[in-house]
């Protein structure tokens, strides 16, 4: 199990997350995709730390910050979705298009 294996897993996770963000109609599922992408980044961080800079502490700190941000993101995101639902009565993202030019 080398660095490449971890990176491949990270890339797959990122791709799956991106796919979810781009294709899901449900806003909750979109948020889940975002979480997957964040975690893919965290995984890459840890893999690089472990294989390239094992003596350094910064990557772990970054990952912790990343996790925190992900949690906050989920909280805010869910609140936004809740409010969207209250206002529009739907959570299908393609029906929320008031930004249309």
């Amino acid at each position: 199990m080398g660095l490449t294996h971890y990176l491949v897993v990270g890339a797959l996770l990122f791709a799956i997350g991106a796919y979810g963000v781009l294709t899901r109609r449900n806003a909750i599922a979109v948020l889940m995709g975002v979480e997957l992408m964040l975690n893919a980044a965290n995984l890459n961080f840890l893999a690089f730390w472990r294989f390239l800079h094992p003596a350094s502490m910064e990557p772990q700190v970054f990952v912790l910050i990343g996790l925190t941000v992900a949690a906050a993101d989920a909280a805010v995101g869910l609140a936004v979705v809740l409010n969207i639902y209250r206002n529009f009565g739907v959570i299908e993202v393609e029906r929320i298009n008031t930004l249309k030019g």
Partner: protein
Amino acid sequence: MNSLPLWLIPLAPVVAAFLAGLLALTRRAEKTAPYLTIAATALSGVTALGHLPDRARMADGQVTADWLTIPSGLQVALGVHLDALAWTMALVVCVVSLLVQVYSIGYMRGESGYARYFAYLGLFTASMLGLAVADNLFQLYVCWELVGICSYLLIGFWWFKPSAASAAKKAFVVTRFGDVGFLLGVLLLAATAGSFQFDTVAQAVGRVQAGALSPPLVSAPTFLWLAPLLLFCGAVGKSAQFPLHVWLPDAMEGPTPVSALIHAATMVAAGVYMVARLFVLFAPSGIATNTVLLIGAFTALLAATIALVQFDIKRVMAYSTISQLGYMMLGLGAIGHAYGNGTVRQAGLPSEPVFTAGQVAAMFHLTTHAMFKALLFLTAGSVIHALHHAEEPNNLRRMGGLLQRMPVTAWTCLIGVLALAGLFPFAGFWSKDAILGVALESGRQSALAMVALSVGILVAGLTAFYGMRMWMLAFAGTPRSEDAAHARESPLVMTVPLVLLAIPSVVLGWQLHQGHHFAAFLVGEGHATAEPMNPVLVALTTVLALCGLGLAWRLYRAPSVAGDPVERLPGYAFLANLWYIDAFWNAVGARGTLALGRAVAWFDRNVVDGLVNGVGMACRIGGRELRRATNGQAQTYTAAALAALVLAVIALALYQSWATPAHNAASPRPVVNAVGRAAPEPWQGKEGLKAEGLPAPSKQGIFFVETTREGETRANPNSEMGS
């Protein structure tokens, strides 16, 4: 009187004109405006008189102030250089301007815009004086244009008359044709000499002639004829020489005193004055001097023949003015002998100002002509003033018999006509014969000068005829209209200037000729040599003048029944149509310009506007299409951002592999090269590193940027990344 500072000469009328302009704005106390400008003109004249150049010591009054410094080292000065030539011109301007302004008090009484009129006259006087006393080309050019604008303003003084408005425009536009050449000439000379000062420019032309200096843009031989001819273009426009003479007859739409001052005595003579002033630049080139000679001679003949058939009293005089200006040009171009130590062909050496007989004769004629032509115009103004309720106050056919009703005007006018005709002992006799004498002197060597001389002699006869014809039509016989029968003499304020101008018209020629005062004054004591008049020439011109006068007297003595005798001349239609020159300008100048304008307007509407509108339309269509991309779907935006990121990464990868040529594999930074080139296949990079003998990184990333740092870190274990 020397205590009066020189700069008063041009500046006093400026101040007066400004104040008169303020009076014109306030519309109160308009009556005081003329006294301001008249006082200022008198002050200028007195100042000039006090600074009579000392010809014995060759000392001229001079004062100069820096005006502008152009960074490349070109200095523009404003100055007063009162040498004999400038002094003569300045005094002529002051005298004529003063008398014309006094006369205008009567002539313009009751006109609306009374103060405005005097403000313009004051401004004109100032500009003309500034032109006369200029010591550099730049100031000359500025004042040249200033007198042009004053001419425009005064021709169009009665702007509500469409004919006056269009005549003003015509005068401005036609002279502009010449002024373009003049400006180019000034710039060419300044670029060659590196200065606008007359003496520096003259030296520079001398050096060009000697081969010591090469002018910009053109070769030295071209320069020597091109520069003076470009300057001459300005003179052709301003002095109404063929083919740009067409504006001057139309300029008669202005008030008659204006015609006397600007379009007879001073401004139109500015071209002659300029050529005389800068003749040192013309002298080295036969092409330039011969052009001046031929244009002058042809213009003299052309205008004199047209003057024969005019029925507007002012137009007779206008063509007469053109003809006389042609005479002056003829004199300048004929050159004659040189005064002083140098010969003409070596002119341009600064230490010894070289004058030619042509310059002296032309300035002589300019001076006397200013007097008698101003007189003639003012008498015409007096007649027009008396008839100004008539339908056509200028029409000679409706005059007649004014001798009994306006004796002062009639007799002074007769003096003017005789002076114009060049009859002994009137002023014109001396100056005209001075010019013809110069032509005769040059005619011994040059066939062209001989032709010009014969033209000049012929024109002398024509001049006498049309002058006398005009006088007979206006003053002799019986009145031919109701208005003429009830005409009354003009008030004293108008007749006194007539008398004052009649005096120099009689005596000035003799005074200046006698003992060669004028030549000695211009050239400097000790240089002037006596020039006996050629008795054959004098006899010939006198006989011709007498013939012309007598013929006119005989033909117009009795009221003619079968129309004017000149109408039976062969070629009358040709002359009455002004040699078809006006028609030519209308066809080529005006219509050609219009056609060019239409073509340019088409280009502008269809090509330039098309481009501009095309840009606008492209933006609008582009915006409309791009708007469809913003569909409000957050997922679309995200997809676009992701696609952009992917594209950026691909582009970066391609760039790295392109920027890393294969032969650089052995360079001091092999890691970058190896991995950059082999990004899709990391293990090859490892092989490459092994070949270099470097410690192989345990794991090669697929992000080559990271790898770069990695490689550096490995090669340098003490770097901060490694710690």
